[in-house]
């Protein structure tokens, strides 16, 4: 199975699909699947619904493929379609959790005092099982207001850049940065005390040494 993610290969693949090699669409969409699903899960908060919406999104991307102009990255365009699919479902269902009310508007200062732990690096490691760690992280992210959760998802989980994230979410790059800052501060405050001792040890496991 080949994945296409470099823009030139992508453009060529799209051209060939439009010219009739329909089966190439599988490889075109594959690198975007994860981000599609998790963006929708972040909006819809339900696995089955997110999966159905992800399938619907992939079909819409296929049907609209001739409309893709290449002025943004393909993935950005796909995720905008996914987000619209998710928002459409939320509007219909009216089951939307009003959790975005918990988020501050971008101008407000708010209290983003971090968790203070002077001993992050010195605390002996209490072994956190991988599964346990995963659950802690998922719960912390699930607990964020939606506006922040989406930004964390795209920036820190799917590792999209600020510009792409702003396009997908329909907000300014400044708003992406503000929300990301707050989201990370909330995650740090929630997680740092629980993750004490899970700091990188020995080898440079996490890419940073100080």
């Amino acid at each position, binding site marked *: 199975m080949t994945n296409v993610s470099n823009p030139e290969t992508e453009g060529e693949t799209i051209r060939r699909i439009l010219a009739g090699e329909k089966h190439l669409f599988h490889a075109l969409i594959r690198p975007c699947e994860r981000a599609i699903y998790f963006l929708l899960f972040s909006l819809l908060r339900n696995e089955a619904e997110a999966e159905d919406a992800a399938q619907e999104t992939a079909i819409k991307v296929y049907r609209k493929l001739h409309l893709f102009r290449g002025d943004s990255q393909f993935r950005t365009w796909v995720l905008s379609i996914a987000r619209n699919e998710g928002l459409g479902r939320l509007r219909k269902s009216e089951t939307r959790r009003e959790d975005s009310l918990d988020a501050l508007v971008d101008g407000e200062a708010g209290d983003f005092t971090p*968790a*203070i*732990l*002077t001993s992050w690096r010195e605390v002996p490691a209490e072994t956190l099982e991988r599964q346990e760690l995963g659950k802690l992280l998922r719960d912390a992210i699930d607990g964020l207001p939606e506006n922040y959760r989406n930004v964390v998802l795209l920036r820190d989980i799917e590792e999209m850049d600020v510009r792409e994230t702003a396009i997908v979410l329909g907000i300014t790059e400044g708003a992406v940065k503000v929300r990301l800052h707050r989201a990370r501060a909330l*995650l740090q405050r929630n997680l*740092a005390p629980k993750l004490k001792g899970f700091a990188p040890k020995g080898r440079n496991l996490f890419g940073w040494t100080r």
Partner: protein
Amino acid sequence: MRIDCKHVWQYISAYIDGDVDAALRAEIDKHLETCEICSAVLDSTRNVVVLVADDRVFELPAGFGNRLHARLDRELALSESP
């Protein structure tokens, strides 16, 4: 002017992303050299950022890809070229 801890916290996220100018970065670095609290805040925030990026934290439901591509196959079979 010496910057204080609250000032550093405001820029933690931008600092991690390399999105602060050289002068501010130098000031923050200088502060971090002597402030254990801010060093720990920075380290723990970085670790959180790194940990959430781990693919194993967020896994697709089992069989997700198979079901998606099976549905796409049906769609592709029915459709004209897009």
